[in-house]
């Protein structure tokens, strides 16, 4: 048993015992870590609001057999504005839910951590709308190695007439190729998705109301298909 130092973003937590919580965090060096915060549900807990969802914290952990126990917490970035806007809470919830689904325990996840941090920072800075989630999900797919092909047909490599999309096939399909289960796309969606996949989260290009909704739907279904699970955060509020 040893004491170690780490930093992480709080993904989720759930009640444990009388007044404790199991807190699941994403650390850049150790991936997903599951910890216990003792007495955190009491109003006079020394942790206070430091272990609330989405908070970026510096931790001192006492290693246990199953779960590590948090002994000290200092806030690096509290993201207070995230909590004052329902749309931001849902967007941040989607981000942490997706990151939680792909993160592995005891495995370095620097790219995933940085992506989540940038996503939360963008929300905190006031970036809103469906395009932020779309861009985040496309980047997440890239981080885990399943980035969709958006600029050329996944079947033949053709660069034009990309009007369909195959979730299982891994991206855009041209008009000439026949791929089972491919869905028809509105004109311009693949280009729109490609721009969002490359864009910086903090400075997304101006959104297009005609395409935003469908683009997010494609990104979401693509990620759900490859994670083999639904993203609850978006589904329950629809």
């Amino acid at each position, binding site marked *: 048993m040893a004491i170690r130092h780490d930093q992480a973003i709080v993904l989720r937590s759930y009640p444990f015992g009388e007044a404790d919580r199991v807190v699941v965090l994403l650390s850049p060096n150790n991936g997903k870590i599951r910890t216990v915060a003792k007495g955190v549900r009491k109003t006079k807990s020394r942790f*206070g609001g430091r272990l609330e969802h*989405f908070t970026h914290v510096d931790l001192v952990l006492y290693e246990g057999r199953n779960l590590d126990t948090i002994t000290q917490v200092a806030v690096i970035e509290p993201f*207070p504005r995230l909590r004052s806007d329902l749309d931001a*809470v849902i967007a941040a919830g989607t981000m942490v*839910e997706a990151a939680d689904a792909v993160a592995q325990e005891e495995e370095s996840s620097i790219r995933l951590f940085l992506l989540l941090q940038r996503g939360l920072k963008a929300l905190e800075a006031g970036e809103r709308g469906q395009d932020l989630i779309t861009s985040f999900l496309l980047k997440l797919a890239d981080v885990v190695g399943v980035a969709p092909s958006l600029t050329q047909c996944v079947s033949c490599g053709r660069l034009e007439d990309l009007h369909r999309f195959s979730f299982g096939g891994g991206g855009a399909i041209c008009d000439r190729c026949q791929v089972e289960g491919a869905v028809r796309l509105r004109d311009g969606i693949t280009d729109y998705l490609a721009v969002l996949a490359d864009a910086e989260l903090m400075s997304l290009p101006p959104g297009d109301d005609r395409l935003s909704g469908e683009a997010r739907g494609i990104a979401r279904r693509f990620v759900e298909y490859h994670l083999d699970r639904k993203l*609850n*955060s978006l589904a329950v509020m629809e």
Partner: protein
Amino acid sequence: MFEGPVQRLIDELSRLPGIGAKSAQRLAFHLLSVEEADAHRLAVAITDMRDQIKTCGRCFNVAAEEFCSICRDQRRDISMVCVVERPQDIIVLERTQEYRGRYHVLGGSLSPINGIGPGQLRFDELMDRLEPEGIEELIVATNPTIEGDATAMYIAREFKPQGVKVTRLASGLPVGGDLDYADELTLGRALIGRSEL
């Protein structure tokens, strides 16, 4: 393994929250050692609670009749409703002796990550209460967690357009606490919610 009925009681007790096998065994043998009437009183209290307690038809608090004692109390200010997550929260608020309105139990809080959306909570029932009761203010007393905050924001979004005043319990420093140990989020909120002396 003990004789049938003893083991059965141990098994049942160990299914209760916070009771492990060892505690269950201790409780079972305690009940075996006390007066028979005492053990029976406990058994009757449990069955009576299950048989007689239902949900209040108005606020969804626990009730022994169609409406709970708070909803039946004529001296209550019916223009004010305090929205809580669970019936246990009502007891805590009642202990303050500062609130004289009615309550509404939502049955939890919005938690999109866990798949709990507005459809799983009693928002529609609250909406149905607005007009008949002439509700003017909703005091949101959900937990100061991200789920509780999301629930409060949802209530503000849905109920303010109905002309109802929506307020949220203040959050800040605990009485008897030390400023040194306050976290950034709590202290920030305490500053925002500061009051003039």
